[in-house]
C-alpha cells in the first residue's frame, strides 16, 4: 500500500531534530510514547492521502463544488475525503485533549498538512481550516471553546471570513457591519464577504466592524457564526485557475447572528494577526506539499520518457531542472519545520524571543515556499515537455494549484513587508550567527565558508542601507529578504546534512545557486545606491 508519510523519509527525519525532544517534553509526560503516536497517526494521514485523496484529485479538480439555493455542495471526491478524514479522527489534531483533540504540536500537524497538500492542494484547504480552532482556543471564552472546539474535532467544517470586495490586502477597510442585538443576545452581521475559502462552512470566523463611525482597524472585532443560526448565503462560487476542489465563495450576511470572540476592537490588530501566522504556516506546508508532488511527477516522467535512446533524465539540462526542484523543495521544507518548531516553542513558553522569530520567519516561509512551489511546478512541467502542457498528466494541475500560494493569506509582496522587519531589526542576522555556531564535519567546511562569505556580503549590503529613506528601503526589501532567506535555508540544509548525508547534495546545489543569486541582488542594490542614492519607485517608469 502506498503511503505518503512512509515513502518520504525526509518527514520522519524532522522528529530527530534536537529541539523536537524539548518541544514534546513541554507538552507530554512520555516523550518517546508521544513521538511514537505522531508516527502512527501520520501513517494514517499518509495512507489516506496516498490511497483515497490523491487518486481522486483529478476528479475533484474537474468536478468542483456546486451551488444550489445559496448552499455549496462539494465534489463527490471532496466530500468523500472529508468523510474519511473525519472517520479517522484527523480533525482537531492540534487541539488539547479536553476538546477531544490529539494535542499535537505544530510540527506533526504541519507535516500532516504537507502530506494532504501533496495529495490534493485544493482539498488541503478544507482540511487545513481546522486551524480556525486555534483562534477560538487562544482568545475565546471558555463557553465558546466548549461550544465549538469539540465540534471541530468531530469534523465540523470551518472558514475564516476576512476579505471583502474593497478590503483585500487592506483589511482595515472591512465594512461588514456588526450590531449588538439586545433582544436576542447576539451580534447581527450585515454585508458582503468575498473570496472566502470554504465559505459555506459550519463554523465561520468573521472580521466585522462593531464600532459604528470608525474607519480603521481599531473598529473591527472578531466573531464566530454557526451555520445553523442562519442568515449567511453563498451568492456565487468563484471560477478559479487552480485549487478547484476547494470552494471559494462570495457570501451575503443578512442579520446573521454571531458571538464575539475575545474583546471588541481587537479583531484585526490582535486576533487576525495571530490567525494569519497560523494560516501562513499552513500555506507554507501546502507549498512544500505541492513542490513534493511536482518533484515526484517530474522525476517519474523523466525516468519513463525516452528520447534519443535513453530516459530524458540522463540529459544534463533535465537533470539540472530536477536537482533544482529538489534543492528548493528540501530548502523550503527545512524552513517550514524550523518555523513550526519556533511556533511550538512560542506557544509552549510564550517567550518573546520566539514571538520575534515567528513574526519574521512565518512571512519569510510563506513568501519563499510559495515562490518555490511555483518555480518547482513550472520546472516540473517543463521536464514533461509537450506532455506537461496537456491535461493528461497531474503536473498541469499542480502548476495551476501552486499559483495561489503566493497570493492568498497575503501576497508575496505583503510577506516581504512583514519579513523585512527581520532584516531591519537584526533578527535574521542574529539567527544566522546562531546557525554559524553549529559545528560541521570537515568535508562540509567549504560549504560553510561560502555561507560565511554570503553573510559578509549581506552585512555589507545592510551597511549601505544605513540612513537611507524608508521608501528606498521598501524598494529593496524583497532583495534583502531573499538574501537573508537564502542564507538561512542554506544553513538549515547544511545542518540537516550533518545528521543525514542524503541532504548533502541539495545543500551544496542550493548554496551554489543561493550565492550567485545573492551576489546579483547585492550588485543591484550597490549599483542603485552608489549611482542614484535614495532611488525608489512610487509608480511605473512609463507614468513618470
Amino acid at each position, binding site marked *: 500500500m502506498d503511503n505518503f508519510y512512509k515513502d518520504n523519509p525526509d518527514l520522519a527525519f524532522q522528529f530527530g531534530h534536537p529541539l523536537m525532544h524539548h518541544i514534546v517534553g513541554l507538552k507530554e509526560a512520555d516523550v518517546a510514547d508521544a513521538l*511514537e*503516536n505522531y508516527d*502512527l*497517526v501520520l501513517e*494514517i494521514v499518509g*495512507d*489516506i492521502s496516498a490511497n483515497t485523496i490523491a487518486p481522486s484529485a483529478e476528479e475533484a479538480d474537474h468536478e468542483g463544488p456546486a451551488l444550489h439555493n445559496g448552499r455549496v455542495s462539494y465534489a463527490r471526491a471532496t466530500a468523500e475525503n472529508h468523510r*474519511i478524514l473525519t*472517520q*479517522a*479522527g*484527523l480533525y482537531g*489534531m492540534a487541539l488539547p485533549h479536553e476538546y*477531544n483533540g*490529539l494535542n499535537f504540536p505544530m510540527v506533526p500537524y504541519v507535516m500532516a498538512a504537507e502530506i494532504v497538500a501533496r495529495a490534493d492542494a485544493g482539498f488541503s484547504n478544507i482540511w487545513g481550516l481546522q486551524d480556525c480552532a486555534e483562534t477560538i482556543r487562544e482568545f475565546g471564552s471558555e463557553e465558546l471553546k466548549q461550544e465549538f472546539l469539540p465540534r471541530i474535532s468531530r469534523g465540523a467544517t470551518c472558514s475564516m471570513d476576512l476579505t471583502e470586495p474593497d478590503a483585500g490586502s487592506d483589511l482595515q477597510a472591512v465594512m461588514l457591519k456588526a450590531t449588538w442585538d439586545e433582544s436576542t443576545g447576539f451580534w447581527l452581521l450585515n454585508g458582503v464577504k468575498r473570496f472566502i475559502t470554504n465559505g459555506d462552512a459550519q463554523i465561520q470566523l468573521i472580521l466585522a466592524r462593531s464600532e459604528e463611525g470608525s474607519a480603521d482597524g481599531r473598529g473591527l472585532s472578531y466573531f464566530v457564526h454557526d451555520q445553523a443560526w442562519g442568515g449567511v448565503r453563498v451568492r456565487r462560487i468563484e471560477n478559479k485557475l487552480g485549487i478547484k476542489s476547494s470552494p471559494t465563495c462570495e457570501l451575503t450576511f443578512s442579520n446573521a447572528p454571531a458571538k464575539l470572540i475575545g474583546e471588541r476592537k481587537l479583531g484585526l490588530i490582535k486576533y487576525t494577526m495571530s490567525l494569519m501566522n497560523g494560516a501562513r504556516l499552513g500555506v507554507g506546508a501546502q507549498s512544500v506539499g505541492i513542490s513534493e508532488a511536482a518533484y515526484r511527477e517530474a522525476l517519474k516522467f523523466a525516468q519513463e520518457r525516452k528520447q534519443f535512446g535513453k530516459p530524458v533524465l540522463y540529459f544534463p539540462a533535465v537533470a539540472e531542472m530536477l536537482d533544482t526542484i529538489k534543492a528548493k523543495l528540501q530548502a523550503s521544507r527545512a524552513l517550514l519545520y524550523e518555523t513550526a518548531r519556533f511556533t511550538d516553542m512560542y506557544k509552549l513558553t510564550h517567550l518573546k524571543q520566539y514571538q520575534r522569530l515567528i513574526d519574521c520567519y512565518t512571512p519569510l516561509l510563506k513568501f519563499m515556499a510559495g515562490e518555490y512551489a511555483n518555480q518547482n511546478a513550472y520546472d516540473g512541467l517543463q521536464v514533461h515537455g509537450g506532455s506537461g502542457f496537456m491535461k493528461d498528466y497531474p503536473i498541469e494541475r499542480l502548476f495551476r494549484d501552486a499559483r495561489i500560494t503566493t497570493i492568498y493569506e497575503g501576497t508575496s509582496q505583503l510577506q516581504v513587508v512583514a519579513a523585512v522587519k527581520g532584516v531591519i531589526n537584526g533578527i535574521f542576522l542574529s539567527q544566522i550567527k546562531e546557525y554559524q555556531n553549529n559545528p560541521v564535519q570537515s568535508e562540509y567546511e567549504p560549504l560553510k565558508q561560502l555561507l560565511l562569505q554570503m553573510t559578509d556580503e549581506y552585512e555589507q549590503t545592510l551597511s549601505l542601507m544605513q540612513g537611507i529613506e524608508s521608501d528606498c528601503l521598501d524598494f529593496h526589501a524583497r532583495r534583502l529578504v531573499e538574501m537573508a532567506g537564502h542564507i538561512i535555508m542554506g544553513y538549515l540544509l547544511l545542518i540537516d546534512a550533518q545528521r543525514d548525508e542524503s541532504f548533502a547534495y541539495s545543500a551544496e546545489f542550493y548554496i551554489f545557486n543561493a550565492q550567485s543569486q545573492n551576489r546579483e541582488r547585492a550588485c543591484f542594490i550597490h549599483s542603485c545606491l552608489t549611482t542614484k542614492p535614495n532611488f525608489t519607485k512610487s509608480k511605473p517608469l512609463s507614468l513618470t
Partner: protein
Amino acid sequence: MFLKIVVLAKQVPDTRNVGKDAMKEDGTVNRAALPAIFNPDDMNALEQALRLKDQYPNVTVELLTMGPDRAAEIIREGLFRGADGGVLLSDRKFAGADTLATSYALAQAIRKMQPDMVLAGRQAIDGDTAQVGPQVAAKLNWPQVTYAQEIMGFKDDHIIIKRRLEQGVELVSSPLPLVITVHGSAAPCRPRHAQRLIKYKKAMVLPWSVGDVGGDEGKYGLTGSPTRVKKIENIVFQVKETKRLSASEEEITDLFRELIHQHTIG
C-alpha cells in the same frame, strides 16, 4: 435494542505480494515469507458491523480470530477502527485446523461469547474456500445469509440484507440469531481512528485456549481435520474458446459436471 455482533476475522499472508519463496517444498504456504494482513473480506464484514453500531444504540462489536500470538494484531486492528473488543483463540491444540476444525473451534467460542449475530468475510485469501462462515452457521444451527453486500438495517425484529449475486442483487430478511458472510464488493472498511490507535496501540489480548472454550478435544486442530493436501500444482489458465449459457439450473449443472470432469474444479 441490545445487539452483540461477533466478526470473524483471519490474519492471512498477503497474497498480493507473492514472491518465489511463497510456497514451501511440501506445498504449504510459507507464512514467514509473506507479510501478515487482515483478511480483506473480513474488513468488509467489520465495516458492516460498525455501521450497525453507528446506526443503532447499544450495539457492541467484537472480533473473533484464531491463530498464533501475533494474531492479536487482528483484535487491535479492530479496536483501532471502532470495535469494542475481541477474542483470540490461540493454543497449540488449535493448530493445523482445516475448515471443519476451524469452524468447530469458532462455534465453540461463539457459544461462549453469546452474540446475536455473527459476521464474516465471504472467504480468506489464503484458502479461498468460503466454507468457514457457512460451517459455523451449521454448527450453531443458525440461519445464514451469504454474499452480503450491505446490511440495510432492522425492520421490526428482522434484519434486511442485500446479497450480491452474479446476476444482480437480492434483498432478504431474516430473524436473529444469524450468520452473515460479507462479499468483497461491500463498502471498504473505515480507516484507523487516530485517538483509538493511540489508546489501544498496546492493548493486551488474552488468548483463549481449548480449555476456555471446552468441547471435544478430538475435533480441534490437526486431529479434527480430515482434509489432507495431496498435491499442489500451478495451473495456468488459458482461454481457448468461450461458451454462452442461459441462467437455467440445468445448464449450470451441466457446466459444473463438465468442469469437474475436466478437473478444472473439484
